[in-house]
């Protein structure tokens, strides 16, 4: 791959992480948490946020010691060519399946909200075409495009201000009623939303000002936590803990409750804005998997391979037969994401120890 086409700044990487985490996560998170901890979902989000910030900081610190290399190079250094490549293939599969699961759920959201009868394949192709186009041009293009999603976040936050009358603070009370054990148990559910923090390890070699990467990565996770907390608390305070668990697209339902003169309902407009964030979220993983594939193959990007890659992505995204299976695939991705993050940390830790040992040896 062309280094110039992939070069990004720490700030762009932070935005990449933030959009990747919040695009899809915030749509289903309030419902998933209401099923487990009732109205205390926002506490779980904050607790998981603190944990994810700690993990992000750890990743950032370990990456800082890696002499500017990404996890795909580090794996080969740490485990040798064969095992390292095997791990890299595992990472590629994880990234590809995550992108496919995201694409699959995106189509499910589209079917629930707008297009009930349009075939999935047509929708997958049409709505992912911009992603395929941008990913081909590299990380820099996809990262730059994420700026546009900021408008989606502003729209959502303004909308939340507009519906203040429908927010019942008592729906969030009594605070902590779920108890410590269920809240701790719910961290695994909340963590799904924070998946995406590991992408920095994949792209680290492309960050031009990587001395600032740690700080910006922590900021990204902090803002994700803030956004998730606002969305979860507002959804709970509007719908209540008993109405939330029966919903499948909570955030979109929230967009249905504001009445505007003349236009009446504005949900379609706001959902359309939010599709920017969702598609960017999926695109982040498409980019990461394509980038990994090129790193593993060590070849110049080829149109033929890219077509196969796209076909594979769409085929995997169509494996779930219904909405429940799509959520199941997301669950699998969630657990895999936790495992991959642990693998990253172990690899980076071994690399850091080896580097330190090497330096000491050189010094000695």
């Amino acid at each position, binding site marked *: 791959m062309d280094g110039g086409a992939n070069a990004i700044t720490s700030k762009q990487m932070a935005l990449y992480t933030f959009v990747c985490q919040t695009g899809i996560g915030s749509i289903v998170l309030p419902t998933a948490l209401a099923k487990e901890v009732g109205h205390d979902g926002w506490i779980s989000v904050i607790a998981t946020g603190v944990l994810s910030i700690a993990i992000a900081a750890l990743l950032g610190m370990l990456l800082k010691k890696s002499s500017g290399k990404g996890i795909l190079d580090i794996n080969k250094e740490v485990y040798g060519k064969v095992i390292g490549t095997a791990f890299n293939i595992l990472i590629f599969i994880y990234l590809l399946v995550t992108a496919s699961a995201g694409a699959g759920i995106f189509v499910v959201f589209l079917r*629930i*909200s*707008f*297009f*009930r*009868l*349009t*075939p999935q394949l*047509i929708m997958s*192709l*049409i709505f992912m*075409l911009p992603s*395929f*186009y941008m990913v*081909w041009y590299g990380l820099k293009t996809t990262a730059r495009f994420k700026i546009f999603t900021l408008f989606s976040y502003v729209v959502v936050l303004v909308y939340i201000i507009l519906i203040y009358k*429908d927010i*019942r603070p*008592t*729906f969030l*009370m*009594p605070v902590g*009623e779920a108890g410590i054990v269920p809240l701790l148990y719910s961290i695994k559910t909340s963590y799904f939303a924070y998946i995406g923090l590991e992408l920095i390890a994949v792209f680290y070699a492309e960050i031009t000002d990587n001395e600032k990467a740690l700080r910006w990565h922590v900021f990204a996770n902090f803002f994700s936590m803030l956004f998730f907390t606002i969305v979860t608390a507002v959804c709970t305070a*509007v*719908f*209540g803990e*008993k*109405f939330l668990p*029966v919903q499948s*697209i909570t955030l*979109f*339902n929230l967009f*249905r*409750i504001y*009445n505007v003169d003349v236009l*009446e*309902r504005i*949900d379609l407009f706001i959902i359309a804005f939010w599709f920017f964030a969702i598609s960017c979220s999926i695109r982040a993983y498409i980019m990461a998997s394509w980038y990994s594939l090129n790193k593993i193959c060590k070849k110049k990007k080829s*149109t033929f391979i*890219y077509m196969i890659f796209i076909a594979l992505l769409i085929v995997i995204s169509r494996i779930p037969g219904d909405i429940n299976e799509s959520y199941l695939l997301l669950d699998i991705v969630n657990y895999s994401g936790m495992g991959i993050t642990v693998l990253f940390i172990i690899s980076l830790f071994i690399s850091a120890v080896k580097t330190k040992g090497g330096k000491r040896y050189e010094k000695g």
Partner: protein
Amino acid sequence: MKKVKILSLCFLCFVHLLISGCWDQKIFEEIGLALVLGLEHTENGEILYTMTMPVFAEDIEETMEILSTTSDLLRQSRDQIRNTSGKRVEGGKIQHIVFSKELAEKGIDKTLDVFVRSSENPFLANIIVVDGSPFEMLKMSKDYKDKPRLGVYMANIIRHARANAATPESRIYNFTILQYSETIDPVASYISFDDTGITIEGSALFNGNKMAGNIDFEKTGLLHALMGEKIQFGYYIKAKDIEESVSSDKRGVSILLYRAKRKIEASCADGTAPEIHISLDLTGIIDEIDLDYRLDEPDDKKNLEEKITMLLRRDFMNLLKYLQEIGSDPVGFGEIIRAKHNEYFKSVSWKTVYPKVKFDIDVKINIEFYGALY
């Protein structure tokens, strides 16, 4: 790189030329927009589904089409209606869902399911209960020659009534949220009709999903104050209620109440009914008065305020008593107890305890001004 560009371009052309939209495309000229939906029970237990659709055709005199059918499911009814209307009927712009009082008393329950489940349906349609048959009302509305089209007419009177706190803001989403909450009972607009028009009567009060009673528009204003919502309503007192000795030609006083500050404190002890203390700080204006008070004299003004306070307190207590009698808790006392006295709430069945709650209300009224006359 060029190949990808060319392929992408070809694909886009293919999409635009051959698909030209999507499978969910709806052409405006071919669809019929349902604006008002009436629901009631038939004698055999099915739901009679009546709807109005505006007619947009120069060669047809009528401006509104009324269609009805019976079935168990709303979707089934819509599909049956599609077979007779000649248009693809869509519910995405439904503005009002009118339940017959009889159906509301039996329970709305999951009737609104289709509106919540399908995102093409509006979450914002008004929930209305009519004293009588919605089918009759919609049919009669065709004769309202001096009124705008029914959907617009109803939207106008409901909007104005809400601005005057004469009827509650009840839409599908907040009605459903409250139904699910189980600690706040929903309310709906309550209307009646005759051959001259539709009248806002006040509020339909629910106990769970069943309509349990109704109150007039003046009491709806008081209910809004108890609910801590924005108010702006007229409170009317007969001269005899202010002073028994007043001469019979005196008419009374009208006050516009336009601000309410509410505070609710609850105390719960095991084994006893909760005690709830409500403080209401009201602000108003004297709109009309036919009594011998010099309102520019502080003593006279204070004297009148005290009498109004006493009558307001009496009316609030009567309203609370009525709500307890019918088991309806639209104010959300149950929600306050659940949130602030959760241990107690879990130890009792709120619906059983609610009628026994001891209420105490402290009302204060401040008459800010009294117009251009003393």
